[in-house]
């Protein structure tokens, strides 16, 4: 696999097929833990590691997995990986593990991971599956971290608080802009609103891009119209 194919998968995961923004998968942890940046980022990294590992394992064993029982086998593979990740988190980031609580074990049921195993890893070679896992995981992490950042900023009035969960040391308050914020943003409804606004923002950006491409395609004149729209 060459570098462009890898870049392609990464781009798909980060933007075009972002598991949260476009496929709307894995919304439960996405909405539940993103009250702060560090929580969202931590769970995103855990999901990224599981997703990369599960894609590689599913892809490597895809010739021997019977289609009739593939889903239980995917779940077994994912559950083993999640157990590893959970133990690693417990050992190295005990406070972050405590903060995320049940949502680390619940990565097993994150439908974004099963979906990638089913849609991509079971049909593609190991290298591409790894790239896909990293791309999708990175996209999920990016979304979780963005949501966490925005909700923390609006709901608590702080930026990057409690980074000690990741780096250790004394509790850090982060950059406190105002004491206390708009409570709604860190409550469950706020998560839905924030996600909806991010999805809408992505649509606006995509539409603008498409419009620009269309204008650029039209500019050379009617002579090139035979080749049709450059971007569908």
């Amino acid at each position, binding site marked *: 696999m060459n570098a462009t194919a890898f870049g392609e998968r990464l781009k798909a995961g980060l933007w075009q097929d972002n598991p949260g923004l476009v496929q709307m998968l894995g919304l439960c942890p996405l909405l539940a833990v993103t009250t702060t940046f560090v929580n969202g980022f931590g769970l995103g990294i855990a999901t990224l590691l599981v997703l990369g590992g599960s894609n590689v394992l599913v892809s490597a064993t895809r010739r021997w997995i019977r289609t009739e029982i593939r889903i239980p086998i995917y779940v077994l593979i994912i559950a083993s990986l999640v157990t590893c990740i959970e133990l690693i988190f417990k050992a190295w980031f005990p406070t972050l593990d405590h903060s995320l609580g049940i949502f680390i074990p619940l990565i097993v049921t994150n439908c974004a991971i099963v979906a990638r195993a089913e849609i991509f890893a079971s049909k593609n070679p190991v290298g591409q599956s790894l790239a896909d896992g990293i791309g999708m995981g990175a996209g999920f992490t990016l979304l979780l971290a963005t949501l966490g950042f925005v909700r923390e900023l609006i709901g608590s009035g702080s930026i990057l608080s409690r980074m000690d969960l990741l780096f250790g040391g004394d509790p850090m308050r982060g950059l406190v802009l105002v004491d206390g914020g*708009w*409570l*709604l943003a860190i409550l469950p*409804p706020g998560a839905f609103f924030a996600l909806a606004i991010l999805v809408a923002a992505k649509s606006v950006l995509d539409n603008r891009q498409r419009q620009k491409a269309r204008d650029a395609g039209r500019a050379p004149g009617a002579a090139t119209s035979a080749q049709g729209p450059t971007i569908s």
Partner: protein
Amino acid sequence: MDFERKEAPYRAPRAKVSSIMLQVLLALVPAALAHVWFFGPGFIFNFLVAAIFCVAGEAGMMRLRGRAPELALSDFSALVTAALLAFALPSLTPWWVTATGALFAVVVAKHLYGGLGFNIFNPAMAGYVMLLVAFPMYMNLWVAPRMGDIDYEYLTAFESLRYTLTGHLPDLVSFDAVSRATPLDAMKSGLNNARTTAEIQTLPIMGDFGGRGWEWIGNFTAVGGFWLLIQKIIRWQIPVGVGLGLLVPAGIMYLVEPGSHPGPGFHLFSGATILCAFFIATDPVSAATSPKGRLIYGIGIGFLIYAIRTWGAYADGVAFAVLLMNLAVPAIDYLTRPHIVGHYDAHKDPSPGVPTDKGS
């Protein structure tokens, strides 16, 4: 000969949206005056703030959506939303809280769903619920009603305005001095502390049925409501349904266990029951539309109010009940489609001549 062809309807409808909304606003005037009398001029400030932000939000959203703002502003629906929101809010509310609720009601609950006629949720109640969730401490600042003998610190109109604008009470006056538990709050916390309803009813804030002052606001609200009924702007099914859904379970529970369940009179004259029955639940857009459906919708709201007041965490449940039943409206309307003369009942007796939902 060239005949001019005219399509149905041949007569212009008598009621326009603007005239209906204007009459709803007029019908709210007695209740508003009673509210100002008992709870001070804060209501007027709340209504002004809510009206400014509702109208501004409406105009802004119409502009963003590429429509003429005058169209939406001339139907007064934003003002009705502002009025209902002002009734829901405590009379002492800082302006930014009211503004947030008003903008949420108009921008999110109304225009993001497509504007007047397409909003599935009652905008005023959506805005109020958002405030209840986001600013719980401001939503509990009800002052005691002005009844002459209840001992409490009265705020002048100027002090009240100053609180609305700055969020600061006058010096030497604490929140405890001006705020009082609402009758529903008092009932809930009293029952939680293992006191009987009879004991709680002897508190100075309690009146004959509900809270003192609140009962009179309820009466004046009902005056406006009956006028709307006579004007045929609202139909009887929703108010009656809300009453039945709330008072029947309240009556049964009161008969079974009067010590721990306040009677139907208390439920009727407390909180926003009467306002809900006549003005909130009857919102023509978000309510059910068939006659039978309206009755079911009203009963559902009434029962949910009773359930939330009795077993829920919040003292009053009008806003939540209305929003929950708003969600049920499509199903209610679908299941209670009125019988069309000459047609078979498609559910019970599917006949080949009548297109059924499955067949088409």
